[in-house]
């Protein structure tokens, strides 16, 4: 389980990183950030990149800031940064709750938020957060910068809209209003394992009714997704257990779950129901 040979590049600026990536991408060149997903696949020789562009020494991309109503997360911000609230308000509370489920302590010191998005594992917590909260993903190449909505970014199992010569330089999460409520559910076989199903439920409460409900599902299908069936039931209703149950059942009925050795589709379908219900119930606790 020794990785295949590769050429190593260590840019110090984003511009250099993007330039190098542009040169090596056609020759199977990849960005190396935290490495907590990439290096294991290299150990199994399922990934054999010819070039690695190590961005760990790139300056000025390791901070979280607030920018125009968004939480802006640079590409070297590690998971551990979110173990405690980075900001006051609902999103500040939400991120630690999710972060706690990401792998284990040492992995969280090294792995990055943006790296998780680029890797696009369907069971990634941050991918679910990005999708549910309508994150905007900043991609940079030698040709410039483009912003991609999370919904358009995730294209399938470990597949994204990022072109091979583009670097994911930051992600912007819209700040949540004080009136927004959330609940998060994840189930994995062992603590720290990839979730077999994750649910992030977010909505606003206006005049006693649910407004702008977002029910995000992760680990269920080949990419994180919002569940329209559940959201439809929730929108405009007053929060109640009956509504939550109906939303959970609708979500469960509408998904086409993956199968793997830990969970047949039927079990994931069940977990979607249990998870949506659990996440929604948390919003009224």
């Amino acid at each position, binding site marked *: 389980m020794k990785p295949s*040979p*590769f050429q*190593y590049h260590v840019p110090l600026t984003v511009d250099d990183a993007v330039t190098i990536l542009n040169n090596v991408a056609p020759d199977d060149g990849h960005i190396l950030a935290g490495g907590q997903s990439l*290096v294991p696949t290299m*150990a199994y020789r399922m990934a054999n990149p010819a070039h690695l562009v190590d961005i760990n020494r790139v300056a000025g991309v390791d901070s979280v800031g607030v920018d125009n109503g968004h939480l802006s997360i640079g590409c070297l911000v590690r998971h551990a940064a979110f173990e405690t609230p980075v900001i006051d308000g609902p999103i500040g509370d939400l991120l630690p709750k999710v972060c706690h489920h990401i792998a284990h*302590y040492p992995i969280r010191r*090294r792995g990055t938020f943006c790296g998780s998005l680029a890797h696009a594992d369907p069971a990634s917590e941050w991918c679910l957060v990005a999708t549910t909260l309508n994150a905007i993903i900043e991609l940079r190449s030698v040709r410039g910068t483009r912003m991609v909505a999370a919904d358009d970014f995730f294209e399938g199992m470990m597949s994204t809209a990022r072109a091979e010569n583009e670097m994911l330089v930051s992600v912007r999460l819209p700040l949540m209003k004080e009136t927004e409520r959330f609940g998060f559910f994840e189930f994995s076989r062992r603590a720290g394992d990839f979730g077999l199903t994750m649910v992030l439920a977010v909505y606003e409460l206006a005049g006693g009714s649910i407004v702008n409900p977002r029910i995000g599902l992760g680990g269920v299908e080949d990419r994180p997704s919002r569940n329209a069936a559940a959201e439809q039931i929730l929108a405009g209703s007053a929060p109640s257990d009956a509504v939550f149950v109906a939303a959970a059942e609708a979500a469960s009925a509408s998904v086409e779950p993956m199968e793997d050795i830990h969970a047949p589709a039927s079990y994931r379908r069940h977990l979607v129901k249990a998870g949506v219900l659990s996440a929604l119930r948390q919003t009224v606790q």
Partner: protein
Amino acid sequence: MSESLVDISLTINETEYRVSVEPRYTLADVIRHQCGLTGTHLGCEHGVCGTCNVLVDGEPVRACLMFAIQAQGAKIRTVEGLSQGDTLHALQQAFMDHHALQCGFCTPGFLMLLTGALETNPDLTDAELRDVLSSNLCRCTGYQNIILAARAGADRMKQLTSPMPETATLRPADA
């Protein structure tokens, strides 16, 4: 041997090692085979078991998921650097006192994990300590004695750094 070798310098336990590496050599392999510090073990080489944990700039990381070439300029600490001469680190002593090891293969990884976590936050609660400890696998002990040892070691580390709060940054091994 290989035209792709790069000369690098690693600082491990405050000693500088000059080694020639291929970029693909993991930090764990270089620590073990080129620096001769075989106390860092490899149990899975894909980041799950934690036997290869070392401290890089104070943080416990999986040395199998980092390339040695990435660790230039960092302060690396391994299990060999825990004790001060004949004086064992509080955690090493606690692991012995509480029979927290059997085969001992996972032990260095647990010790470095705990050292890093407790130096960062000496006040870890039992629940937080359990969460940190769940990062590593042990196949012999069933973990119960590891929990006891971790608690005892954590308490002892705090004792060694108190009573003066301003000396809280003093490493217990130095005390």
